[in-house]
């Protein structure tokens, strides 16, 4: 090595040739740098996203020891579902049974409620009821109040700084009251603590935490084993106790559970750090900004691919252009350069190019981050406090990329023999050409694979958006009903609203008929008895008509029949699950006693996401538990109707701020995360194809330059432009064909797996695959023919004078 640096002058002269080389073939240099720069930009953006996703919930100091209890519910049909809610008695029972468990906490995230203090009124959607142990388990930073006692008494609430400022401005909030208009009546909660705003990269969000014991009076659904309605978290003494606790859980369940109620129920512990990314199959959970490990993996793969494609460009172009530099290498060796020095120098050169690309990519990242982040619904939180490790990491990546891209060309270039100088000219070696073909094929294969995946994702998403849901989502306006008072106004609201001729129907109920709670029902008498877990939906008269759902048998609730308060409507899946021939008139029994009669069967409709199959559903007539006022508008005069709804609402409920939305917006939001992945996937695969084409462009340009003499001779001998284009593209056609053969099976394997995640999915046809191949081929040919035609058009006389 010392001789290497002895030659500072050698090094400088070497730099000179590099820079003069660059200015002599700017386009190739540009392609190399641009490809790597695009690669680094995409890579950095994706890494920012991936790091954010992987760091969810890790700010909790005890994150390694915190677990969420998940229930495995097995229906008699053999179906298994996972739910993130548990019985209220489970947490305390676990704690008293297991010495390994240091603490447990139960949370009840509350639906949006109207809160006020003095004349400040807000709808709150992050109110959570919790045991006082919440502060032992999750990491909070108290600004005011006593962490240990804050939630000991009923009607206590701890709020975050932002909320404190909203209600109390600059005053000290401790001891002040916030009134909550909840289902159970209007109640004043005393502020006992103020905490720093909870971090955003948490699967839980809070801005108000109220004491759980407020809700635990005698007939409360939040005590005992009968209901399944609280989220339970466990803190272990030591992380390594996980196995031993998990092992003993079946036995614990067998001895502690009232058997008749929850037959076949199992529980397991889900590590806190897994909740954000590995909860796709878990129902009834309140994951804020839920992530998906598949998306994280897919994007990481894409980041890798884009950089890899850029590296391939680098290797291909450098080896292809090597004939130009072979003479330089030969002369340097002749004059006494060691082979190894040349290798260092060429690797050094590629590392320098890699760093130049990295440097250029940083402002690009800065520029694209806001757009990228808004596509990810703002989930990337860039902290500028501690950028150094991140930047060092990027430098390490640039170094590795420089090495990977440079090592082969370096050995290849430095292997030119100076003895060949005497032979006049350097033929390009067969080995180099074969490698170039392999790498180019690989590039095409990656591009085709990504395009195939993208096409399939787009088709599947369109399939989902266009699939009939079983109800009419267009023109359905909804207003949340957040308390008893507003619910009591349903009849009068309906009466008043229907006076507008453009309002076609008014009812109340669940937004998509989904039901947010589970109930247990059984069938009395012989043959019945088996317990079913069903979704419960509480609706008002006219719900089925207003939503545009279809009754397949019997009828829906009617105001004319008083007995309908003890009737239910079920969906087809429910009717089928009991294999009734004639469901009308059959009786079902709820866990706490009353018996209901089935008066109608409703055609299955989809709720939530088309990833999931339809569950058995029972609809009760229960206006007091309706969550939304639903208004079907005619397509004409919408804005005046909305105005009319607003005046009517304000007149009847002056203390309730008017808010509304449309069902179609709500549904679009449901598919939001899939939409966002779809957009990004399209964008990224376009970038990948772009990078691949960049390389192809450079290679063709080089080939055309090399063959300009041949082209000239052929033209003199009478070849047409078409002949020339064909001659130059024949090889590419073959490479694309081989790439298709390699890419299609891989794409098929992964996309079939992805589609299996959907309950309703498209079928994969050969056409999908062929079209992706054709698309990539067309893009490649466009890139190619631009230069081929140019070469074909050029004056042969000029070409022959070349050299």
């Amino acid at each position, binding site marked *: 090595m010392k001789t290497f640096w002895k*030659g500072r002058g050698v090094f400088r*002269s070497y730099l000179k*040739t590099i820079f003069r080389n660059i200015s002599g073939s700017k386009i190739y240099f540009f392609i190399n740098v641009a490809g790597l720069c695009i690669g680094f930009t995409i890579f950095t953006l994706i890494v920012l996203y991936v790091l954010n996703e992987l760091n969810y919930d890790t700010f909790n100091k005890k994150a390694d020891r915190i677990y969420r209890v998940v229930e495995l519910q097995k229906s008699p049909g053999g179906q298994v579902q996972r739910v993130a809610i548990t019985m209220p008695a489970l947490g305390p029972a676990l704690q008293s049974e297991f010495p390994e468990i240091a603490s447990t906490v139960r949370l009840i995230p509350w639906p949006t409620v109207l809160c006020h203090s003095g004349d400040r009124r807000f709808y709150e959607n992050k109110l959570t009821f919790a045991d006082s142990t919440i502060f032992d388990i999750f990491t909070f930073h108290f600004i005011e109040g006593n962490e240990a006692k804050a939630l000991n008494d009923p009607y206590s609430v701890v709020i975050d700084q932002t909320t404190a400022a909203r209600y109390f401005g600059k005053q000290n909030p401790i001891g002040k009251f916030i009134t909550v208009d909840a289902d159970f009546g209007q109640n004043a909660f005393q502020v006992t603590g103020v905490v720093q705003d909870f971090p955003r990269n948490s699967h839980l969000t809070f801005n108000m935490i109220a004491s759980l014991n407020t809700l635990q009076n005698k007939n409360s659904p939040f005590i005992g084993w009968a209901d399944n309605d609280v989220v339970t978290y466990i803190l272990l003494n030591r992380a390594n106790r996980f196995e031993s606790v998990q092992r003993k859980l079946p036995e614990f369940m067998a001895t502690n559970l009232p058997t008749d109620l929850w037959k076949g129920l199992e529980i397991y512990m889900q590590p806190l750090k897994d909740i954000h990314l590995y909860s796709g199959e878990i129902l009834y959970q309140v994951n804020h900004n839920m992530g998906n490990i598949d998306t994280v993996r897919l994007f990481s793969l894409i980041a890798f691919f884009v950089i890899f494609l850029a590296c391939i460009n680098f290797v291909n172009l450098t080896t292809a252009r090597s004939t130009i530099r072979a*003479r330089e290498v030969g002369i340097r060796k*002749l004059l006494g350069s060691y082979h190894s020095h040349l290798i260092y120098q060429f690797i050094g050169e590629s590392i320098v190019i890699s760093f130049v690309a990295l440097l250029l990519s940083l402002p690009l990242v800065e520029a694209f981050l806001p757009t990228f982040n808004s596509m990810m619904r703002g989930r990337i939180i860039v902290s500028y406090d501690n950028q150094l490790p991140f930047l060092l990491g990027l430098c390490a990546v640039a170094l590795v990329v420089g090495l990977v891209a440079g090592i082969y060309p370096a050995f290849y270039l430095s292997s030119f023999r*100076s*003895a060949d100088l005497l032979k006049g000219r350097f033929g390009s070696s067969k080995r180099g050409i074969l490698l170039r073909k392999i790498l180019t094929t690989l590039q095409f294969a990656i591009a085709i694979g990504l395009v195939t995946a993208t096409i399939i994702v787009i088709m599947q998403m369109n399939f989902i958006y266009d699939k009939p849901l079983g109800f009419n989502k267009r023109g359905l306006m909804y207003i949340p009903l957040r308390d008893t008072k507003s619910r009591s106004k349903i009849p009068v609201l309906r009466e008043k609203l229907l006076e507008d001729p453009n309002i076609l129907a008014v009812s109340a109920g669940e937004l998509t008929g989904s039901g947010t709670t589970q109930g247990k029902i059984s069938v009395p008498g012989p043959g019945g008895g088996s317990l079913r877990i069903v979704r419960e939906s509480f609706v008002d008269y006219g719900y089925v008509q207003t939503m545009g759902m279809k009754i397949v048998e019997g009828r829906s609730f009617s105001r004319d029949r008083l007995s309908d308060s003890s009737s239910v409507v079920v969906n087809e899946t429910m009717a089928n699950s009991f294999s009734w021939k004639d469901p009308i008139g059959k009786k079902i029994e709820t866990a706490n006693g009353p018996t209901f009669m089935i008066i109608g069967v409703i055609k299955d409709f989809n709720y939530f996401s088309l990833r999931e199959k339809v569950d058995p559903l029972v609809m009760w007539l229960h206006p007091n538990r309706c969550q939304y006022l639903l208004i079907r508008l005619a397509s004409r005069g919408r804005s005046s109707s909305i105005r009319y709804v607003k005046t009517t609402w304000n007149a009847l409920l002056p203390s309730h701020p008017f808010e509304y939305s449309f069902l179609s917006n709500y549904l679009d939001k449901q598919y939001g995360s899939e939409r966002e992945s779809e957009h990004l996937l399209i964008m990224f695969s376009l970038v990948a194809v772009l990078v691949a084409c960049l390389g192809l462009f450079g290679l063709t340009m080089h080939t055309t330059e090399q063959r300009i003499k041949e082209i000239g001779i052929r033209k003199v001998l009478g070849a047409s432009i078409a002949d020339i284009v064909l001659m130059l593209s024949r090889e590419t056609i073959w490479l694309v064909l081989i790439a298709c053969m390699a890419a299609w099976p891989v794409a098929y394997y992964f996309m079939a797996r992805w589609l299996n995640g959907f309950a309703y999915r498209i079928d994969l046809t050969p056409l999908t695959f062929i079209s992706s191949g054709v698309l990539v081929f067309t893009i490649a040919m466009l890139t190619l023919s631009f230069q081929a035609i140019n070469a074909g058009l050029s004056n042969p006389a000029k070409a022959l004078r070349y050299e």
Partner: protein
Amino acid sequence: MIRLYNLRKIYRTGQVETTAIANANLRIDPGEFVAITGPSGSGKTTLLTILGLLDSPTEGQYYFLDEEVSKLTEKRRADLRRRNIGFVFQNFNLINQLTAYENIELPLLHMGIASSQRKDMVMAVMDKLRITTRRNHYPQQLSGGQQQRVAVARAVVGNQRVILADEPTGNLDSRNGEEVMELLARLNEDGTTVVMVTHSTEYASWANRVVQLFDGHVTNENILEGKRSVSELS
């Protein structure tokens, strides 16, 4: 200076073996001007690559400065070559991205000579070869004769003891060819050993010895008593 004993060079390309040099014995003393001639394909270039330590023989011994060099490592050969041997080619082989000055300076950089001294050495040799005015030109901006003079300058700038030239006049017209021959002869008079491959009997007559190759064999060695000299020319 140079002694070859039973030297043999065989090229293998796949199944085909070509004997480029079959059993050559040769001795070149310091200060000689040797011309190597022979028909195309007779092994002249091959012989020169071996003499220049660019390639190693298949069999036989090669003593360069009394050191057996046929089995040396590439590194060691590079060291020897750097200090002692200069090359001149038919197609000049200058680095296109470097100016005339920088091309000539290159061997000095590899020798690790200090920059002030380098400058003096380069300027001296440019002066001697009358190319000083062209020092900032790139090879593409020079005529063939000028390029070859730059190449000769590069071959001797580090006071190399041997110049190996493969048809240095091959790409030049007669006037430029003469001029290059004149340069080589003058360098030889200053004590540099010159080994030159040429097709032309005219140029071969500048040497004081002609070695003839045929099919890889040294067939004839003529000592030319009546060697032409620079003084004679002018």
